[in-house]
């Protein structure tokens, strides 16, 4: 209270200066008069009385100063004066101010933008209640495709019984359904969840209610909870949606509520349904099949329980069930469960990229600060005279330090204000990049915390700049004044610091350039990758005639499906310009999620060797020609490979190499195998290989081709169908006509992913391209700043050495020699910076190894190219001051 009151009085004191000053003068004068009068009364003569009184006062001016300090907040007044002064000084050097502000704005802006993304995606607390208590369980095993196996219902049951540290275990199963409405049909992604899902996740509804344990089991009404995003997108945020019915997979489902905005996990999802929506999820295969793993598991730690406790308990459960159910856990595959904090799982895919960008931005900031420090140092030399005069007039070193700090703060804040503009643009760009990696991209924003980060960054930058600007030591001022103003060129120490800063800039630029080079080369390598098919002029579209559930469990639901697909094919093929139309699924360059183990007749796997797991794809007789996939051996499917004829397959080269390395595979037999077949509408019968197709990069350009088994489209509609249309030119123009045909033949079926193969290919590399582009632009930015830095330092050095150079020239040094001298000065700095940079890049490249493809992290060509480029640009930057040095007229400099 007392301090508050005093503080308020002092703040008030800031604004009452003049009036209070008059008052104070009167008061002190009265004191002096009274004391003088008293002295006279004691018998002194008036002059002596006054002198004595003055002496006792200790000085009226000093007293006035002391009271003023007590009255207001002297440091604020001092800083206000400093700010005023700093602004004036910066206005006087507009070029300096502009360059510095822009440089700092780039550094601060880039860092702020990327920090806001890192914060939104990786650091911010989850919107879930006590989100840090949520964990994700991941079951994995050795072998391809077994990095995340999900869980089966019996496994979840065992976990519930055996892991008390997990207070709630929620099940989530990804599914797709067709939603029919008056204005057409669309496929939606849904999650089938247990009733405790929302309770465990700690999420609340914005409308209506969420599912509860009473929504579990058979015989309950099917209900749906819409995600916030889907509710807004599809229903325009209409609150009357609660209680309405929607048609999913041809059956009515009641919407009971809308979920709060929350990150999607594990996939983008439109609605969350109770299990009764899927017959399959309540069937015996699902509920009893221990190896029927299609459930994601999220759990909430019990109060007081730790992740380690949960790990121990789950480990014990797994040790037990692996002994008990040997048939479901192949000992060679080492089944295991990892327990990962939910927040970490959400950030998993974005983490490496984001830290890469954050690191790159930090480098840009280092370079920017080094450059600005150099500029201020040079300016400081010119200002040395002024500082010396100020010191002579009574400003202490502390006072000058504060003045410089205030100047630097003003500069940094100027940079920060401009940086906000850059950050706003940057955040927008980055959000679109991060959306591909993280379900939390919608949480990215420039909020208070980010602006706080920016402010802190600016203050740190200002402090750094102030520390680097070395002031003369106390007491050395006098000698400098005696030395005379004009001779105060940069001290040796200062020059050494400038050089060190230039070296830092060059080294950091090299690191950035090397990163950019490696990522760009990765892009080039990816673009060179042979997709295995001719992607030009091919349009694809998926047309699911059956719902996903029907496909899997009741393919006979639409007996006319095959005939309708054939009609679409024939009619589209009749469009002008069309060369070939094929039917199949999934579309080329799309990963297939349907994978089973395969075995070859007469080829028992070696002990401990896992069977290959192959993608199941379908193709009709025209598919390979339409997609441009070469048939290496054998024949394509024929129209005679119908539903009733013999079971035939075409396998790709990867699988052929695996099973039949030195044999002719045509005519050999393979079969699907494994426990999972019991749950799939597919038989383990032997099938005869009739052809070998070339490998295609369906899993991404950077992924090795997976083994594939093609089955005749006519024999197997269970994974859906789509059209592959090859035309002679401008295939995009066919999209409208083909869509019209499909819509006429199948009015209620969704038409999905109408895209050319070139678009598919492009889409698979675009995040990497954006990545490479960002790092490259950072690299180019860095090189420009560094080039300006080294050029500036040399120019400064030349102007400081004008006299010396003049003397050299008058003593016979020709201009070529002077040029060489200056160039070698710059070359030395460049060389040191290059060496340090290459060493730094070597380590940095190892960190980003995971983002590279087809390039070694220490790729000599990249490193050499970067070094040559940096050296060339650096030398070019040195050339200008060197040229200026060589044009110095000795006559003029000597006379001066």
């Amino acid at each position, binding site marked *: 209270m007392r301090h508050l009151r005093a503080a308020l009085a002092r703040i008030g004191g800031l604004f009452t200066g003049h009036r209070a000053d008059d008052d104070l003068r009167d008061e002190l004068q009265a004191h002096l008069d009274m004391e003088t009068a008293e002295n006279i009364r004691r018998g002194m003569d008036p002059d002596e009385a006054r002198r004595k009184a003055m002496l006792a006062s200790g000085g009226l001016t000093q007293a006035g100063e002391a*009271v003023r300090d007590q009255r207001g907040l002297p440091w604020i007044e001092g800083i206000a004066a400093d700010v005023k002064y700093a602004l004036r000084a910066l206005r006087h050097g507009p070029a300096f101010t502009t360059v510095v502000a822009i440089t700092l704005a780039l550094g601060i802006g880039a860092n702020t933008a990327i920090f806001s993304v890192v914060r939104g995606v990786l650091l911010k607390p989850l919107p879930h209640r006590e989100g840090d208590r949520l964990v994700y369980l991941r079951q994995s095993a050795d072998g391809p495709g077994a990095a995340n196996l999900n869980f089966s219902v019996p496994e979840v049951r065992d976990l519930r019984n055996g892991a008390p540290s997990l207070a709630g275990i929620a099940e989530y199963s990804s599914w797709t359904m067709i939603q029919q409405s008056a204005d057409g049909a669309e496929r939606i992604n849904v999650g089938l969840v247990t009733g405790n899902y929302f309770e465990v996740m700690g999420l609340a509804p914005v409308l209506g209610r969420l599912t509860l344990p009473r929504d579990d089991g058979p015989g309950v009404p099917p209900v749906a909870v819409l995600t916030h995003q889907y509710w807004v997108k599809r229903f325009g945020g209409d609150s009357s949606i609660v209680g309405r019915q929607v048609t999913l997979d041809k059956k009515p489902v009641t919407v009971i509520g809308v979920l709060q905005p929350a990150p999607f996990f594990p996939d983008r999802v439109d609605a969350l349904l109770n299990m009764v929506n899927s017959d399959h999820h309540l069937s015996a295969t699902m509920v009893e099949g221990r190896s029927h793993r299609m459930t994601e598991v999220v759990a909430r730690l019990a109060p007081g329980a730790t992740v380690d406790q949960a790990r121990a308990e789950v480990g014990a459960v797994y040790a037990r069930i692996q002994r008990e159910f040997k048939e479901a856990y192949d000992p060679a595959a080492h089944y295991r469960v990892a327990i990962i904090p939910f927040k970490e799982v959400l950030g998993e895919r974005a983490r490496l990229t984001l830290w890469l960008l954050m690191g790159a931005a930090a480098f840009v900031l280092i370079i920017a600060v080094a450059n600005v420090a150099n500029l201020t140092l040079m300016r400081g030399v010119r200002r040395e005279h002024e500082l010396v005069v100020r010191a002579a007039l009574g400003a202490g070193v502390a006072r000058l330090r504060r003045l410089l700090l205030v100047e630097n703060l003003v500069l940094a804040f100027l940079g920060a204000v401009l940086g906000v503009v850059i950050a706003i643009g940057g955040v927008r760009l980055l959000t679109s990049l991060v959306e591909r990696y993280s379900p939390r991209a919608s949480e990215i924003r420039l909020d208070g915390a980010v602006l706080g980060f920016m402010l802190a960054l600016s203050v740190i930058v200002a402090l750094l700049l102030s520390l680097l600007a070395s002031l003369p030591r106390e007491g050395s001022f006098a000698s400098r004044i005696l030395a005379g103003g004009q001779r105060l060129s940069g001290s040796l120490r200062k020059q050494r610091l400038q050089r060190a800063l230039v070296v830092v800039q060059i080294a950091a630029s090299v690191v950035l350039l090397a990163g950019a080079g490696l990522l760009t080369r990765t892009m080039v390598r990816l673009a060179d990758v042979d997709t295995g098919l001719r992607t030009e002029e091919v349009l694809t579209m998926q047309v699911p005639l059956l719902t996903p559930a029907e496909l899997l469990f009741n393919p006979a639901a639409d007996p006319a499906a095959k005939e309708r697909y054939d009609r679409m094919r024939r009619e589209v093929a009749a469009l002008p310009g069309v060369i070939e139309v094929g039917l199949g699924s999934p579309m080329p360059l799309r990963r297939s999620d349907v994978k089973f183990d395969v075995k070859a007749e007469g080829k028992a796997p070696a002990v401990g060797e896992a069977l290959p797991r192959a993608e199941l794809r379908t193709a009709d007789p025209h598919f390979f020609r339409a997609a441009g996939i070469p048939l290496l051996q054998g024949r394509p499917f024929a129209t005679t490979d119908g539903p009733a004829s013999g079971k035939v397959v075409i396998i790709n080269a990867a699988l052929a190499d695996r099973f039949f390395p030195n044999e002719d595979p045509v005519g050999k037999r393979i079969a699907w195998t494994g426990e999972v077949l019991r749950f799939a509408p597919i038989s383990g019968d032997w099938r005869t290989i009739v052809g070998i197709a070339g490998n295609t990069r369906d899993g991404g350009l950077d992924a090795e081709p997976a083994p594939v088994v093609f089955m005749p489209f006519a024999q197997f509609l269970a994974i859906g169908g789509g059209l592959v249309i090859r035309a002679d030119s401008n295939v995009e123009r066919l999209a409208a006509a083909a869509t019209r045909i499909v819509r006429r033949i199948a009015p209620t079926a969704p038409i999905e992913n109408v895209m050319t193969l070139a678009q598919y290919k492009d889409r698979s590399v675009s995040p990497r391209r954006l990545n490479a582009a960002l790092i490259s632009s950072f690299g180019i930015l860095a090189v420009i700043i560094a080039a300006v830095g080294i050029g500036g330092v040399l120019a400064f050095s030349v102007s400081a050495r004008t006299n010396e150079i003049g003397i050299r020239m008058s003593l016979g040094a020709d201009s070529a020699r002077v040029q060489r001298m200056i160039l070698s000065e710059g070359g030395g700095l460049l060389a040191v910076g290059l060496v340090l940079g290459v060493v730094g890049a070597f380590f940095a490249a190892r960190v980003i190894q995971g983002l590279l493809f087809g390039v070694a992290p220490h790729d000599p060509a990249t490193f050499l190219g970067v070094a040559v480029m940096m050296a060339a640009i650096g030398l070019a930057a040195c050339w200008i001051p060197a040229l200026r040095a060589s044009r110095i007229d000795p006559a003029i400099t000597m006379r001066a």
Partner: protein
Amino acid sequence: VGEKLDVKQGTLALMILKTLEVLGPLHGYGVARRIEETSKNRLTLNYGTLYPALLKLEQEGFIKSEWGQSENNRRARFYSLTAAGRKQLAREAREWHQTAELIAAFLAPRRGET
């Protein structure tokens, strides 16, 4: 007569408050004289010490001031104690006594030591 002492921070405020309590409203000169006399001239107060202290007490709300006429008809600023100042004086005096006793006890020659 003894040596001259510096006024310790904090004690000056206490002296000013006590002076105003004893003598009632008083100008700065009067306060200074009273403190110097009470200390038998071992303390001298220059303006740069006294007036910031008066201002600080006023800012803290322990004293208030107004312009008035001095005994010999001079215009002077008179300081007087507020209610909060009275309370503060009592509190500080009590603390000071306790501290003084404590220090005295500490510094007293112990039996057997001399």
